[in-house]
C-alpha cells in the first residue's frame, strides 16, 4: 500500500462530501431518497466494474450475472431455504468470485483479445439471463418478492428509505476506498502494466492470469454484494432488470462516462447521470414520454465530445482553467 492511499483516507474533502450526503439524507423526501439510494447503488456497481474495466482494461459485459446472483439467488436462498441474507450475501459473493475467476481463466487460456473477451462475456450475460428466466428456484421470469422490511439488521433489513440510503452510501464509500486501495497497491500497478502492454509485463514477471483472476474475483464479489443490497432495497427482485445484460451496459456507460483513470470517475458520473435521468423522467415523462431519454442521450454525447476521457477529467480541466490546481488532477496523474 503506497502512502497516497493513506492520504486519501485522511482527506477531509472526501469525508466532508460523504458526511454532507449522509446528513442531507436526514431531510430528503422519500422520492429523493429513493433516487439517492439508487445513485449510491449505481456508484457501487460502477466502481466494482471499474476494477476489471478500468484498471485491468477488460470490457466485461457479464456483470449482470453477478448482480443476478447476489440479488436473486440470495433472495431465493432466504425465501426457499430460510438462509439468512447475510449468509446468502457471502455465499453469492463467493460464487460470483468463482465465476469471475472462470472468466479470467477463459481469457488467459484462450488468450482472448479485448473484443473477443467483451463479446464472450456478453454471450455469458445473455445465457445468465436465460438461465435465470428458466430457473424456478430463483423465481423464473417472474422474480421474487421479499417480505416487508421490519428493520431487523440481523436479517439484512435496514429499516425504511433512510436506512437503505445510509447502507448504500456506506457501501459506495467502502467501494471507493477499495478502488483507491487497489489503485495504489501492487495489484493495481500490475493490472495497469498488463492493460498497457501484456507482453512487456510478462517479461518482467507479472503473471497475467493470477492478477486478472484476482481482479475479476474482487470485482465479481463486490458486484454481487451490491446486487443483494439492491434486491433488499427494491423489495421486489425483478429479473428483467437485475439479470439483464442491459444492466451491464448501463453500468459500463456510467463507469466510462465518468472516466476510468480515477475511482472518482464512476462515482461522479453516477451522481450526475442517475438523478438526472430519474428527475427528468419524473418531470417530463408524464407529458412527453420519451423526451427525457432523448435529453439523456444528448447529455451523454455532449460529455463524450467535450471530453473523450470522461467527465471527471473534464471537470478537472474546467476547475484548472479557473485558476485552481486541482487535487483530482494529481490523483489522476498518480493513478494513470
Amino acid at each position, binding site marked *: 500500500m503506497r502512502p497516497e492511499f493513506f492520504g486519501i483516507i485522511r482527506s477531509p474533502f472526501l469525508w466532508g462530501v460523504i458526511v454532507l450526503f449522509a446528513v442531507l439524507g436526514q431531510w430528503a423526501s422519500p422520492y*429523493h431518497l429513493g433516487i439517492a439510494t439508487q445513485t449510491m447503488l449505481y456508484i457501487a456497481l460502477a466502481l466494482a466494474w471499474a476494477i476489471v474495466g478500468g484498471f485491468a482494461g477488460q470490457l466485461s459485459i457479464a456483470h449482470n450475472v453477478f448482480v443476478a446472483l447476489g440479488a436473486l439467488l440470495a433472495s431465493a436462498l432466504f425465501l426457499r431455504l430460510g438462509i439468512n441474507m447475510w449468509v446468502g450475501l457471502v455465499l453469492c459473493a463467493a460464487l460470483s468470485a468463482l465465476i469471475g475467476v472462470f472468466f479470467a481463466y477463459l481469457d488467459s487460456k484462450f488468450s482472448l483479445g479485448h473484443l473477443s473477451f467483451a463479446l464472450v462475456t456478453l454471450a455469458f450475460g445473455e445465457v445468465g439471463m436465460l438461465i435465470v428466466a*428458466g430457473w424456478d428456484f430463483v423465481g423464473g*421470469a*417472474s422474480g421474487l418478492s421479499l417480505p416487508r422490511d421490519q428493520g431487523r439488521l440481523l436479517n439484512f433489513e435496514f429499516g425504511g428509505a433512510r436506512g437503505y440510503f445510509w447502507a448504500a452510501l456506506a457501501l459506495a464509500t467502502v467501494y471507493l476506498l477499495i478502488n483507491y486501495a487497489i489503485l495504489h497497491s501492487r495489484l493495481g500497478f500490475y493490472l495497469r502494466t498488463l492493460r498497457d502492454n501484456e507482453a512487456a509485463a510478462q517479461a518482467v514477471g507479472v503473471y497475467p492470469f493470477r492478477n486478472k483472476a484476482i481482479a475479476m474475483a474482487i470485482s465479481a464479489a463486490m458486484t454481487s454484494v451490491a446486487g443483494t443490497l439492491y434486491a433488499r432495497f*427494491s423489495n421486489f427482485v425483478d429479473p428483467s*432488470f437485475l439479470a439483464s445484460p442491459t444492466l451491464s451496459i448501463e453500468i459500463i456507460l456510467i463507469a466510462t462516462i465518468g472516466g476510468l483513470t480515477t475511482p472518482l470517475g464512476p462515482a461522479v458520473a453516477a451522481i450526475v447521470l442517475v438523478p438526472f435521468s430519474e428527475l427528468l*423522467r419524473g418531470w417530463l415523462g408524464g407529458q412527453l414520454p420519451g423526451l427525457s431519454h432523448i435529453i439523456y442521450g444528448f447529455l451523454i454525447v455532449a460529455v463524450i465530445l467535450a471530453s473523450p476521457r470522461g467527465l471527471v477529467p473534464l471537470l478537472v480541466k474546467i476547475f484548472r482553467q479557473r485558476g485552481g490546481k486541482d487535487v*483530482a488532477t494529481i490523483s489522476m496523474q498518480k493513478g494513470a
Partner: protein
Amino acid sequence: MTVLGHLRCVRLLPALAAIALMLLPVAGKAEDAKTVRIGVLDSMTGVFSDFGQQGRPAFQYVIDKVNKDGGIKSMGGAKIELVLADSASQAGRAATEARRLITQENVSLVVGVLLTPEMLAVSPIADEFKTPVLSHSAAGARGDYMFSMGLPYDRGYAKTMVEFVQELNKSHKFNLKNVALVYSNYEAGQQVNKALQRRLTEAGFNIVGEVPLELQSDDQTAAMLRLKSLNADVALGQVSPRNGTGLFRARYSLGFFDTVLIGGTAGYTDPVLWKDLGDKIGQAALTRNLFGFAFSSTASRTPSVQKLTEELRATAKQGHDIGQSAIQGAQAARLIQRVLELAGSTDRDKIKAAFEQVKIPSGDADLYLDRVGGLSFGPDHMPNDSTGVMIQWKADKSQDIVYPAQYATAPPSAKK
C-alpha cells in the same frame, strides 16, 4: 501527500453541494378542495409501451367526460386532476415514479396499466404511504392498498381457457385431447403456463409438450414446426403481441392449421395484429382454428360497451383500432369515478375503503366488461368475477364472442 486533502479542492464543493441539493424535499403543494389529484402511471416508453399508449387516451377520455358532466358529485362537484407519469416498462422505475406521485405530487390515489412486475414493485410503496393504487391489468394485488382490475393467472386466464376447451368438446363436437403449451417465455407466459398445466392435468387432458417462445424474436417458424411435431389437437398459452405476430406469420407460410390455437391475451386478440400482419396473412392465419382469450371485446352486444367503442373509435388516431387495453383504461376511469363518489373525500383510507365496497353490477351503463358478476373486489383485491371472454376473428377484422355462452355473438367454428 494528501491528494484529496488539498485545500483548493474546496472549489469542487459548491458543485457537489448543488447536486446534493436536489435531494432536498420540494414543499408539498396545497390541496385544492375542489379537485381530486390522481396519479396516472402507465408504461409509455420501453418494451410494453403499446399497452400504455393504448390505455391512457381512453382513460383520459372518460375522465374528461366525468369532469364535463359535473365532476364528483359527493364532493361538491370536485374535478379530477390527473398527474401523468411514465413507468418506462420497468418495475424499479415504476416504484420511483409511484413514490414521486404519492409524496411529491400528493395524489389521493395512483392508477395505471401497471403490469404484474410493476405492480409488485409499487405495492410496498402503496403500503408504506397508505395510498390506494389501482392497476388495469396486473394478475395479482399484493399488500393492503393495491387493487387490480386484471385477471388472476389461475382463476382468470387458466380457468377460462380450460373450461372453454371442455365446452368445445362437450357442446361443439371438437375432440381435443392432446394439449401442447405454447407461451411467451416471460413472467406472464410462465405463470399462466404453470396454472394451465395444473388445471389441464386435473381435467384429464394429455399434455404432449411445451413450446416456449423467445420474447424478442420475430421469426417463430421453428416454434411452429416444433408444435407440428408434437401432433397436438390444441395449443394453449399466454402469448405477447410480438410473439403472436410471429406465430401467425409462421402459420400462414407453413400452411399449418391443424392444431387449434387458444390463447391470449393481446397476442391473439389485439386488433393491432391485423395491422402488423396485413390483410392477406391476417385472413388466412387468424380466422380459422383460433380462439383468443381477452379481458373484454369490442364485439360485445352490451349497449354500454357498444357506445364506448363508438366514442373511442371516433377519438382514436387514424388507423388505430380499439383493443382491450383501451377498454380497461376506460373502465378504470369509471371505477375511479364510482370509488370517489363512494368515498366522498380525498382521504386515502376512505378511498381504500371505497375500493373494498364499490360494485358496478352487470347491466350498469358504466360497466364495460362482459361479466355476470359485474365489477367488484374480493378479499384478495382482485375482481370477484374473473371470467374473461373467448373470441374468434372474422374476415372483416371484427370479432365474435364465442364464450361465455350468455355473451356469445356466434358459436365457435372449426374451419380447417
